[in-house]
């Protein structure tokens, strides 16, 4: 296996992602796991296993991002999710546009210029209604695997409007709708629409420039992509590895920045 030239770790609220790249920026290895309550030891363990697997000897720059970034002590650099997602998506598409990243409890909208610089950004505050957690919660409640939510919703001929955008209250609303005999698919479509109406307002407020890039766990849901495209009226381009955009961007930053040649981990 090629030796990694840089490693990026994205310690998100739901999942932790790790990407190792070579000198050309090609991905050698990518790992994803559910985030454990103690992020730091988990990140160290992942890092160690990746270094061992790739045979890297030590002085690889490691860039950490995500909410847990500051906890990853062995990282040579800490960068925000904004900078890393911008770097990751720009490398993939090489053009100006607007990135919508639907994460676990955090949705980001980032506007990029033609050089990949961040012009403006917005993130959801204080409420997880426009994020993946909204659907994840309901999938759990309804006993449907999360990856089936989107396709199921797209199978509906009409949507059952969900009035509550609150993740917690939507749950009880769904339960009573099911009790009234409303078909599940219609409810699911309604739920997706509720999320998109919230998300779309956030994107619109940033005066998005097309095209819209989509990343994060939410990008794997076909219903979200389609509804967002309809709502914004701009073409959507989904990242090839939607959940790794942040970690990939972090690794790219590690490759491009002159970092002190500090050993990432004592091996």
């Amino acid at each position: 296996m090629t030796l990694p030239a840089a490693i990026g770790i994205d310690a998100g609220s739901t999942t932790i992602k790790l990407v190792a790249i070579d000198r050309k920026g090609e991905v050698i290895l990518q790992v994803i796991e559910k985030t454990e309550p103690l992020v730091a030891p988990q990140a160290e363990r992942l890092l160690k296993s990746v270094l061992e697997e790739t045979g890297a000897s030590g002085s690889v720059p490691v860039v950490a991002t995500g909410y847990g970034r500051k906890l990853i002590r062995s990282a040579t650099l800490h960068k925000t999710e904004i900078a890393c997602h911008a770097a990751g998506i720009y490398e993939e598409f090489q053009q100006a546009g607007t990135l919508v990243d639907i994460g676990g409890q955090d949705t980001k909208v980032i506007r990029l210029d033609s050089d990949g610089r961040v012009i403006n950004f917005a993130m959801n505050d204080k409420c997880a209604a426009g994020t993946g957690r909204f659907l994840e919660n309901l999938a759990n409640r309804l006993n449907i695997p999360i990856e089936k939510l989107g396709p199921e919703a797209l199978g509906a001929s009409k949507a059952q409007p969900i009035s509550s955008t609150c993740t917690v209250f939507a749950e009880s609303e769904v339960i009573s709708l099911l009790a009234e005999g409303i078909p599940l698919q219609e409810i699911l479509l309604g739920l997706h629409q509720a999320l998109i109406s919230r998300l779309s307002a956030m994107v619109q407020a940033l005066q998005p420039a097309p095209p819209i890039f989509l990343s994060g766990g939410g990008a794997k849901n076909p219903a979200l992509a389609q509804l967002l495209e309809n709502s914004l009226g701009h073409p959507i381009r989904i990242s090839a590895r939607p959940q790794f955009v942040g970690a990939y961007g972090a690794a790219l930053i590690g490759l491009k920045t002159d970092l002190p040649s500090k050993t990432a981990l004592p091996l």
Partner: protein
Amino acid sequence: MMQPNRSRLRYLLGYRCFAKPALYVRFLAGFRKPGKTGQNTALNAPVGVSAWKKAGLANHYLEGRYVEGVRKVAWVTSGAPIEILRALGFYVFYPENHGALCGARKVATEIMQAAEQQGYSPALCSYARTDLGSLLSGKTPLQKIPRPDLLLACTNICQTVLSWYRCLAEYLNVPLYLIDTPFLFRDATPDQIDYVKRQLEGLIPVAEQVAGRSLKWSRLRQVVSWSKEATQLWLEVLETAKAKPSPLTAFDGFIHMAPIVEQRGETHAIRYYRDLLKRLQNRIQRREGAVKEERFRVLWDNLPVWYRLRHLAEFLAERGVNVVASTYTYAWAELAPMMDSNRPLETIARTYLHVFLNRPARSKLKVMEKMIHDFQIDGVILHSDRSCKPYSLGQMDQRDHLVSRLNVPALLLEADHNDSRAFAEQQIRTRLEAFVEMMEQRK
């Protein structure tokens, strides 16, 4: 007659002969230890004023503990025309400043809950909730708040004060005088000035009756000229931040704005700012900045986050950011040239009509544009203050304008000036760091 005499005795012996001299001794002897800022942080020790001036500010609250029954007390909104009350010898108390103090001492949220328990909505302004909560629970970091004999509310800062002060009037059973300031879409017309002036004329007999004395016009002119002088000096203080590196941060400004709000129209405010100005000018000559390494100069819009003031100052300074100016502190300075002590009532009407919040969003944007130019600003933090709707309205458009038209990085930061429950620590850290990264990309 017994009660006032006892109050007077307490005031003369307790306050004048003991507590006040003791306060000055305490400050002059330096018993109050300086904060740790400037030792192990990215900030240099902030420029202060002499212990004497500092004591003069603390004395305002100290006097409040003894003043009931001796001087007449008025509770006023931050944008209320207090010059008439000052000329009549009122002790003026600002519930909003008290709220800020509660916020800075990190007790506001607890006090607010007392108001929420009585049914006040958490959507209500956190200053109003702090004030009402303090009144209902008796909690305050100041040992004692003097009860008012008169309430004066002016709508130039917001419409919330209308209901807030009506509640106060109901609870306290004291007269309330409301001054209505029409919203200015452009400069005030003679009719609008006349409308406010007539309300000021109506205030005089009400205040005279409460005060038990007549207004002397010479005194009013004197007070207005002191207001003007303090405002002018405050403007000069803020403008020292144009120097590179800036000797002052907006966070220092939030602290130093207490006299311009609370002691406007008194000589102490003038002495305070003269002293501060001199020290800042010396600092400029020494080429010493408020932030040890000033890499970025930032403008802050809206009220401060009182309960995280030092935290934010240090967090940003560590990243080379000096928040050199704020529209909020500037709002108390920019109208100085408008004041004319020869025509006191008309001046008061005109000045208080033109305050920031009584003008449209585009007018704030113009001020911001000018400040970006004058203070050589690299980025703007727009604090979207959940509590202050009139200040926060239009910020989204302002951000877009700054970013798209002026090419200045701008961040919308959601928080609340007094309610710490609306401050999402992790989210705010990430946003601020990303904002700094944005400015870095442009250097």
